[in-house]
Structures are given as structure tokens and as C-alpha cells.
């Protein structure tokens, strides 16, 4: 079956055969193959369909820059399917299952390929133009049809079953890339004893040496030299080598992110082994030895399966022992493709012609071609490619003037090898905001000013020969080591049979064919053609950043590795401006597509985010509570009894609390201890309320504003003693409030003698509310008298409750007689259970956050963040009573008299009573003038809180409405789908407006 294997070539293990499937067909490859090399060895070039036009595509590269050969891979077991895997990177293992993408019903016959016939509809900017009109096409055509047929791969439907790891690493020198320059740098540093981390994205070190071996290095075969060098590096304690490890991003201060693949190449990964590991490597010096990427040439049909980079064909031959075809035409503007042709010819591939667009090439190349009987067509161009699912031939002609060709002939072939020269791989350098400068002579961008301690070596600096790369690697290492204060001796690596080369940079190749009909691709992955880029320029896109967004050139997952320079060149030509003036788009991490799992690392499932639980939480769980998340806390939402749904459970909890007594876990309330001689002064400055005269043993509602005058937080604050306050905050606001307090204390008032301590988790807080609350609590309280006279509303005592030291507050968030008991948090559940037993004598219920919300809303108590939204002043919320009128200043006070804060039509918090008492409005619903049916209607405000009130036997709501206070008693409308509700504006206190019930 492996007709395309070449004996004696490649680094695959021919003793280990590996079976895998592609689209359900079983194939055989060898250990050391990629999916792409193994499929090519089986004669399969067609590996997928393209993104927009569904054109048949095969691999165009042999590496991580691959734009075309994207496949779905799966391992057995749910959650192990991955789309858009590059077939050129995925290593083969026994049993690997792969599928092609973007095709229906099959790769060979794809209905979506009709898009290709309609390509004029999908011209540049079609995203912005085509989808605009007619409107009815939006949901009938564009969404279901075009969206479904465009796109890359299919998202997995199962949760990812794999685990991912992450590690930090510190080193003196990080070397990225293990080709000649990286190896030379590593050897230099390793022999010097420097601490080195050496990473490469491939399974083995060697880089270009694996694809194109010089005849000898230091007098040895390349294979032996490489083996000895790797052995030497591996034996060094000061060198850590990582393969299958891609440097994906270069971050500040020499931190490089390296994504290491651990198990994707294994038939049987170790149980529980992470699939990938993200390394965050902080290096004192970094050497980027990432080489260069070969550029495609742009001509009609350059995307047909069988057309690939000349260097890729050379890699498939020399690294994998695969010939990519039997008869190849080479088309190039660079010497390197000639060498690729010679390698293939020597391995028995018929090279039908070398078509070089340059007017002359050197004598050596010509004579080597002649020696092999290869027809060299210098000064020629390929004008078109025939064949759809596989190349069947090309038309070539002599270049005559800039645009035209003459003497056109057809050459049959099954493979076209192209090379438009090489682009230095400077993506990581660009991540550092290092500048690039344009080398006019060689028409490449080269590294300029650097912002980090990094050094570029080899191909990245436009050095194409392997000897130059070795030398430059040594040089870079010496520079880096000098920066480290180490003086390393140099070393030399001598290459025999080096193949230095040069070339020119082309835009679209000359052709006589209709410019608009040509399908000459610039970006294979996003299906952008040369025509699209010229169209973008004609439509007014002047900068490459605009051209990129208009055409999507370079915006695919390969980030334009192959397309940016060609796109730039074509745009510059069309604009008639020098290439560097048109600019280069920004490279951003990651260098290659990286799984979300690698970024997430350990932060998944229960480790995604902490779940904070109170000491009483497990009691709630044992007793059937339904939970809801409140910031990071999980809180008991309601406690359904058998047969109860949420509505009936909450109604019962409300009823029983108001009738007798209810118990509530309020431990999540934020708590801050404010202590010190200046504690009262600090509180005066922070909160709107006056604190100086608050006696020890008393508490007060506190309101906190931002300096802009808007409500930030609130809570009951108790004065424990002259110099000590027990501050409570909203559950979600605790950290924010403490931070705000610290900010003022440290930066504005460092003279105040005050300490702030978060005590949220030091206390369990149990709230008892209802007419019988005292009866339940009293038996457990020692050291204080709970009677209404001795312990009035808004009093607090330090005492013992149930034998535990306690801070006992008499406060109410329900309008009923209420107590909040704070005991050291570890005793919360014990006290809860004592009170629960005692409560049985009084038909006590336990209630959750929903009932708490209803009961507070019946009393018009606000929830900051629900009834306020960061634009609400105390006056808007009807809380002017909480402002200390005589205080000269507090945070936010000055803002309360800014002109906008005094406007009469501000949104103000009011109550709403629906005309139909059974209608419970939706929170967030918009409010309009009664009878306003205009479209669009003027929005007056929105519903902030809305509940069924069991106590009132009807619905209640609160809302922020423009000029709300003035509207008291008038009607407004709440338009909802299908029906408009009418409601009357009211006050916000719906229940017990005189507050008699707390006085018990």
C-alpha cells in the first residue's frame, strides 16, 4: 500500500507499523509519521475542504504553519474529540481516528462546494456587504445556510475529559528552536555551564537539519553529528530539553509561555497523565532561533491538492521517507526550491520542469539541473493549474512584461512544488513590541530595536545558509552569556555541502488569464485571493490593517504565517506605495493554535473557582436546601418540603416567619473590624452617617458612597466599644469595601490610628426573625437581658449564646422582631442545631435567601446592586435620612450637590403595584408612560425587584423610574411580549408601614 515510501529515506521507525483511520478508511503508517506524512505515503492528498468556498485542499506545508490540512482527531472515550488539528503536526499512533472537515455529505462530494461557483458573492468584504440586505434573508438564508457552511471544524459536544497542568520555571537562558542556530547556541551555553532551557515544537531536535541534511557536519554525517550533539546536551545537568513544546507567547520581562504536548502522540497515555502542560518560563536571557517560513507563490489554482511548498516536499522526503508525487513541476522565485527539486529527483521523482520567475539563476543550479536532466524554465511563470481534487497539470509561459506571458505550454504533473522565498519567523519577537525594519535588498522584515533581553539568531535574521545559522547561534549565545556576566568561549561547527541561496519576492505571478476569474490564493485558510486584496485597496482600504479586516487575510488560526507577506506585497503594489509604508499587521500570541485546556490548566471543574461555604452549609444540604450562588458563596435559596415547588416553599417560609419565627443563615454577610483610637473618626469620614455619638452597645444602618456620590454598599454597623466597630457589608461587597477603606486609610488619611481586619469568615451569623424570635433565643443567652426594655431594637451585646462567646445584635431585615447572633464560625452549626430544636416548640421554619429577599422587599429595604446600579444617590433611593446632616465631610458628600445630582427627573426608587395583583413583573423589565405604544417607546426606567408577597396576598415590585417620587399614585406601563402590564407607582414600604412589629 505504501507506494509513495522511498527506501533508505526518513527518520520514521520502519520496524513499528501503525494503523489509523481517516474518514473511516484504515491506513498504515510508521512510528514517527504525522497524519499528513502517513496519508501522503498512502497517496492521499485531499484532506479537507476550505473554509468559505469548500475547495478541496491538501497539505501545503509539513509543519505547524499548515493552513489547509485541518482534521478532527479523537481518542476513545467521550470528550476526546478535537477539531482543527493540523495533520502536519499530529503524530501517528496505533488506533488514532481522524476525520476530514467542512464537507457534506463527503469529502469527495461536497454540496457546500457550490460556494466556490458563487465566489463573486463572497468577494472581499462580503461579511459587511452581502449580509446587509434584504433584511428577511438574515434568519432565512444568512444564518442557517451561510453560517452553517462556513466555519472551521465542528465544536466538540462533550466536556473535555483530559486534565492539563501548568508549571513555572526560572532559568538563565531560554533557547527557542532547535535548528542549526538553536543547537549551536545551546552547545555554547551548555559547555559554559549556563543554566539552559531548550525548547522545540517538534518531536525531535534538529530543525532544518531533519529536512535538508548537509553532506557533512564537522566531518561526520548529519545524522551522527545530530545524535552526538543531542547526547551531549542531554548529558548536561545544566540543560533542560523540551520537545513537543511550542513557545506560544513572549510576555513582559522575559516570560515565555511554552505549551508542551504530553500525551497526544501516545497510544496508551499513562492513567491520569495531563494531556498538555503550560510552562511559564522566566528567563534572564532569551534566544529566538525560530528560523524562517517558506512563502507560497500566488497563481491561479495554487491551492489545489498536490500543490505544496517545495520545502515541505523536501521535508516529507528526507524526514518521513515519503515522495509527495511521481511527477512534479517546481515553480519558484528562490534558489532553495531548486535544491528541493534535486533531492526529489535523486529519490526518483520525475521533475518535469523547474519554472523560475527570475530572469537568471546561477550557473551551479543550471548545471545541477542539467546533470539530472531537468528542464529549467527560467524567466517563466505558471499561469494556471488543472485538476480539482488533485493536480493533473500546469500551464506555463515565458514572462513578457510585468503582466503577460507568451509561449504557453501545458505540462502534465501530479504535484506542483512552489517557493516564493522565506519569511523570518519573528512572531515572538513581535510579541515583545520589538521593532521590525525593512531590508530593501532582500525584501524582508528583520528584527530591529528590542525591548526585552532577547537575541535573534539564524533564519530569523534573514540568514538562509546552515553554516551562517550555526555561526549566528554561537554568536547569539556569546552575546546572551556576556549579558549574564559570563564569558563563554566560542565554538565552530563546520558544514560541508551548505546550500546558501537567494531569491526575489513576487506578488501574483504574471498570467494572461482574466484577472477576475483567477483563483490565486493568498490566505488558504480564510480563502482570500489576490483579487480580494486588490478589491479592498480599490474600495479605499489604505493600510494593511484595514485590508486585513476587510478581506480577513491573515485572520485565520494560522495568523497569516504564510499569507501576510504576499498580502502586503499585493496591497503595496496596488497602492503604488513602498511595502514598508503599507505596514505589517501585528502578531499576537499564541504562535500556533493552543487548546483552551492548556490555558485553563488546573482551573477547571471544582478548581475553576472556589465555592465558599458557611459552617451551616452542610446542615442545609442535609436538610434538602436548594442552593444559589451569591458572589463566590453558595447559599441556601429555599428549603422545599415534600411536594413543594419554589413558589409554595417560599410562600410558606414567608408566612411562617411572619406568623411565628424563621431562622436564616446570614454568615455570608461581609464583616470588617474597624479598631483604633481614631476608629470613630474614620467611620465618620467613610460612611454618610454620624458615628461619634453612637454609644457602645448600639448599632446603626450605615451607607457607603463612592467619592462620586453614588451608593456603593450598606450594612448594619455596631459599636462594640469606644475604639471598636463591627461593620457588616453586603455579601458580594465585602472585599470591595475593605479595599476602599484601606485605600483611603493608607493614601489619604495615613495619620488616622486605625486598623482594618476582614472578619467575614471569623463569624457564623444566625438571624432569627418573627414575633417568637425572642422565645427561641432566650434559653441560650447568658449574661444579658433580652427584654425589649433592656435590649431594644438596634442594640448589641457581647454575651454567650449556647455556651459560645457571641456578639448579639437586635436588628431586623424583615420588619419583624429580629436578632442576629454572631458566634465564632466553627460553632455555627452547633448553635444552629440547638436553636432548631428549640424552634420546634414554636413552629419555627428555616428560610433561605429567596424568602429573605421577599421579606425585605415587603419592607422596602434595598439590596445594593439589585435596587441600585452605581448611578443611584442616597436621595434617589429615598435614604437621605441616613446622611449625617451636620457632618462637614464624608466620602461622596461633595458630589451630592453637583448640578446633575439635583435634577428632578433623576431615576428614583419607587414601589409598583400591578393592576392585576396576580402578575409578578419580571425583574429588569422596562417601564414606559401609561398608554405609550410608540415604537420605540421612551424608557422611563426598569423593575429592580419583584416578588409575590404572601403577607399582602399580591405581587409587589420596586423600580427605578425617572422622576419617580413625583409619579406617586400615577400609572405606568410595563410592555412585555404578548401583553402590557399596568401598574401604579407607590411608596416602597408595603408592609407594616409604621414599623410596629419590630417594637415587640
Amino acid at each position, binding site marked *: 500500500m505504501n507506494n509513495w515510501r522511498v527506501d533508505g529515506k526518513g527518520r520514521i521507525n520502519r520496524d513499528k507499523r501503525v494503523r489509523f483511520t481517516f474518514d473511516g478508511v484504515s491506513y498504515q503508517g510508521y512510528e514517527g509519521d504525522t497524519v499528513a506524512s502517513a496519508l501522503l505515503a498512502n497517496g492521499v492528498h485531499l484532506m479537507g475542504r476550505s473554509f468559505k468556498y469548500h475547495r478541496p485542499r491538501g497539505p501545503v506545508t509539513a509543519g505547524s504553519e499548515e493552513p489547509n490540512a485541518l482534521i478532527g482527531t479523537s481518542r476513545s472515550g467521550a470528550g476526546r474529540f478535537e477539531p482543527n488539528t493540523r495533520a502536519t503536526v499530529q503524530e501517528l499512533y496505533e488506533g488514532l481516528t481522524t476525520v476530514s472537515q467542512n464537507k457534506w455529505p463527503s469529502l469527495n462530494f461536497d454540496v457546500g462546494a457550490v460556494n466556490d461557483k458563487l465566489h463573486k458573492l463572497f468577494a472581499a468584504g462580503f461579511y459587511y456587504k452581502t449580509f446587509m440586505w434584504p433584511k428577511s434573508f438574515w434568519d432565512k438564508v444568512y444564518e442557517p445556510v451561510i453560517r452553517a457552511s462556513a466555519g472551521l471544524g465542528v465544536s466538540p459536544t462533550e466536556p473535555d475529559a483530559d486534565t492539563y497542568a501548568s508549571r513555572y520555571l526560572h532559568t538563565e537562558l531560554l533557547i527557542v528552536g532547535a535548528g542549526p542556530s538553536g543547537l549551536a547556541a545551546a552547545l555554547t551555553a551548555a559547555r559554559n555551564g549556563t543554566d539552559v532551557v531548550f525548547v522545540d515544537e517538534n518531536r525531535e531536535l534538529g530543525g532544518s537539519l531533519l529536512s535538508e541534511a548537509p553532506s557533512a557536519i564537522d566531518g561526520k554525517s548529519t545524522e551522527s553529528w545530530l545524535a552526538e550533539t543531542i547526547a551531549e546536551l542531554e548529558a548536561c545537568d545544566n540543560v533542560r530539553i523540551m520537545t513537543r513544546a511550542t513557545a506560544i507567547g513572549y*510576555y*513582559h*520581562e522575559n*516570560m515565555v509561555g511554552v505549551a508542551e504536548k504530553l500525551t497526544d502522540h501516545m497510544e496508551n497515555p499513562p492513567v491520569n497523565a495531563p494531556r498538555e502542560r503550560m510552562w*511559564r518560563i522566566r528567563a534572564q536571557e532569551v534566544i529566538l532561533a525560530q528560523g524562517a517560513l517558506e512563502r507560497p507563490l500566488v497563481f491561479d489554482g495554487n491551492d489545489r491538492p498536490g500543490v505544496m511548498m517545495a520545502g515541505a516536499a523536501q521535508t516529507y522526503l528526507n524526514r518521513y521517507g515519503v515522495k509527495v508525487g511521481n511527477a512534479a513541476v517546481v515553480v519558484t522565485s528562490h534558489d532553495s526550491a531548486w535544491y528541493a527539486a534535486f533531492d526529489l529527483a535523486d529519490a526518483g521523482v520525475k521533475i518535469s520542469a523547474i519554472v523560475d520567475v527570475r530572469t537568471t539563476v546561477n550557473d551551479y543550479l543550471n548545471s545541477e539541473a542539467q546533470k539530472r536532466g531537468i528542464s529549467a524554465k527560467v524567466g517563466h511563470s505558471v499561469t494556471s493549474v488543472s485538476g480539482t481534487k488533485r493536480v493533473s497539470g500546469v500551464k506555463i509561459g515565458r514572462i513578457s512584461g510585468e503582466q503577460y506571458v507568451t509561449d504557453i505550454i501545458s505540462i502534465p504533473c501530479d504535484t506542483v512544488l512552489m517557493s516564493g522565498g522565506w519569511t523570518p519567523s519573528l512572531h515572538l519577537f513581535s510579541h515583545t*513590541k520589538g521593532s521590525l525594519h525593512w531590508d530593501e535588498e532582500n525584501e524582508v522584515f528583520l528584527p530591529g530595536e*528590542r*525591548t*526585552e*533581553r532577547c537575541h535573534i539568531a539564524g533564519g530569523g535574521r534573514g540568514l538562509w545558509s546552515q553554516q551562517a545559522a550555526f555561526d549566528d547561534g554561537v554568536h547569539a549565545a556569546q552575546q546572551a552569556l556576556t549579558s549574564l556576566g559570563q564569558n563563554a568561549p566560542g565554538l565552530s561547527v563546520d558544514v560541508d555541502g551548505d546550500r546558501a541561496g537567494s531569491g526575489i519576492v513576487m506578488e501574483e505571478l504574471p498570467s494572461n488569464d482574466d484577472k477576475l476569474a483567477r483563483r490565486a490564493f493568498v490566505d488558504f485558510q480564510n480563502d482570500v485571493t489576490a483579487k480580494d486584496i486588490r478589491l479592498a485597496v480599490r474600495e479605499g482600504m489604505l493600510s494593511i490593517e484595514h485590508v486585513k479586516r476587510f478581506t480577513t487575510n491573515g485572520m485565520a488560526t494560522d495568523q497569516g504565517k504564510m499569507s501576510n507577506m504576499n498580502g502586503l506585497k499585493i496591497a503595496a503594489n496596488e497602492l503604488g506605495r513602498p511595502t514598508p509604508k503599507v505596514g505589517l499587521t501585528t502578531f499576537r500570541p499564541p504562535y500556533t493554535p493552543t487548546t483552551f485546556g492548556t490555558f485553563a490548566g488546573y482551573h477547571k471543574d471544582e478548581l475553576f473557582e472556589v465555592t465558599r461555604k458557611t459552617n451551616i452549609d452542610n446542615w442545609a444540604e442535609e436538610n434538602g436546601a436548594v442552593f444559589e450562588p451569591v458572589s463566590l458563596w453558595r447559599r441556601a435559596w429555599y428549603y422545599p418540603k415534600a411536594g413543594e415547588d419554589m413558589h409554595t416553599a417560599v410562600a410558606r417560609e414567608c408566612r411562617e416567619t411572619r406568623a411565628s419565627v424563621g431562622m436564616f443563615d446570614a454568615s455570608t454577610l461581609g464583616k470588617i473590624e474597624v479598631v483604633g483610637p481614631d476608629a470613630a473618626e474614620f467611620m465618620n469620614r467613610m460612611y454618610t452617617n454620624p458615628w461619634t455619638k453612637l454609644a457602645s452597645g448600639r448599632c446603626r444602618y450605615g451607607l457607603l458612597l463612592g*467619592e*462620586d456620590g453614588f451608593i456603593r454598599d450598606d450594612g448594619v454597623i455596631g459599636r462594640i466599644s469606644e475604639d471598636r466597630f463591627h461593620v457588616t457589608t453586603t455579601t458580594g461587597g465585602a472585599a470591595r469595601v475593605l*479595599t476602599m477603606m*484601606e*485605600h483611603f486609610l*493608607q*493614601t*489619604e488619611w*495615613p495619620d488616622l490610628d486605625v486598623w482594618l481586619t476582614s472578619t467575614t469568615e471569623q463569624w457564623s451569623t444566625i438571624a432569627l426573625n418573627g414575633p417568637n424570635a425572642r422565645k427561641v433565643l432566650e434559653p441560650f443567652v447568658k449574661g444579658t437581658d433580652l427584654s425589649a426594655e433592656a435590649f431594644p431594637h438596634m442594640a448589641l451585646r457581647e454575651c454567650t449564646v449556647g455556651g459560645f462567646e457571641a456578639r448579639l445584635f437586635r436588628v431586623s431585615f424583615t420588619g419583624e422582631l429580629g436578632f442576629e447572633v454572631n458566634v465564632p464560625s466553627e460553632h455555627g452549626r452547633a448553635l444552629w442545631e440547638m436553636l432548631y430544636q428549640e424552634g420546634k416548640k414554636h413552629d419555627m421554619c428555616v428560610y433561605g435567601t429567596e424568602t429573605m429577599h421577599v421579606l425585605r422587599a415587603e419592607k422596602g429595604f434595598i439590596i445594593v446592586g439589585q435596587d441600585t446600579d452605581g448611578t443611584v444617590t442616597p436621595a434617589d433611593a429615598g435614604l437621605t435620612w441616613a446622611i449625617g446632616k451636620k457632618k*462637614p*465631610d464624608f466620602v461622596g*458628600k*461633595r*458630589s451630592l450637590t*453637583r*448640578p446633575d445630582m439635583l435634577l428632578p427627573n433623576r431615576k428614583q426608587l419607587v414601589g409598583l403595584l400591578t393592576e392585576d395583583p396576580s402578575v409578578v413583573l419580571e425583574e429588569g423589565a422596562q417601564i414606559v408612560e401609561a398608554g405609550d405604544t410608540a415604537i420605540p417607546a421612551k424608557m422611563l426606567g426598569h423593575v429592580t425587584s419583584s416578588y409575590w408577597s404572601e403577607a399582602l396576598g399580591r405581587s409587589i415590585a420596586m423600580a427605578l423610574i425617572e422622576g419617580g417620587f413625583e409619579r406617586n399614585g400615577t400609572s405606568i406601563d410595563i410592555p412585555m411580549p404578548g401583553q402590557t402590564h399596568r401598574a401604579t407607582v407607590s411608596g416602597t414600604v408595603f408592609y407594616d408601614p409604621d414599623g410596629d412589629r419590630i417594637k415587640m
Partner: protein
Amino acid sequence: MLLIHCPYCKEKLPELEFEYAGQAHIARPDNPAEQTDAEWRDYLFIRSNVRGDHAEQWRHSHGCGRYFNALRNTVSDKFIATYEIGQACPTSHAEGEENNEQLES
């Protein structure tokens, strides 16, 4: 990820331990009540938004918890200096110039 020198801990530590806290050297007026609306607006909202060296407050929130001042270049993102609250802003190397302390030291 930046490395930030905490002037209180006297250690260079990862950015993850710190949080940004706004422009530095904007003192709260002693007597807000005496501020005109325009003055108070400026204090509340008007910030420099500089392209270049920017004095700002940071907090070592996952360390000592202290607020401190920093001079940072908004183009390179890099810290030029950090200093204690209450200390004067050190002059930047050159007005408007992008500083790359890393390479100079």
C-alpha cells in the same frame, strides 16, 4: 507578566500579586465643601491619560497589602520606579521618551 518591586517588601514580585489603583498624586482636597463644581469634577474625573511615563498607585494586594506609587511607561508597560506613598514622583528619564529600563540596567 510584569515584575513589580514593592517598596515596602523590598522585593521584585510577579504582577499577579498586585493591583492597579489609579493615577497617583491626586490628593483629596482638604475641604471638599469649598470646591467649585469644576474643581470637584476635575478631582473626580479628569486624568492625564498620558502616552509615556505615568505616575500611578498600585497595591501589593496579595502580599503586604500596602499601597505604593509607581512610575510606569504606558507604551512599553514597564515600571521605571516604585516608591512609597507620600514620596515625591521621581523625574522620568526624558519627557515623552519610551524608557526601557530593562535594557539599560
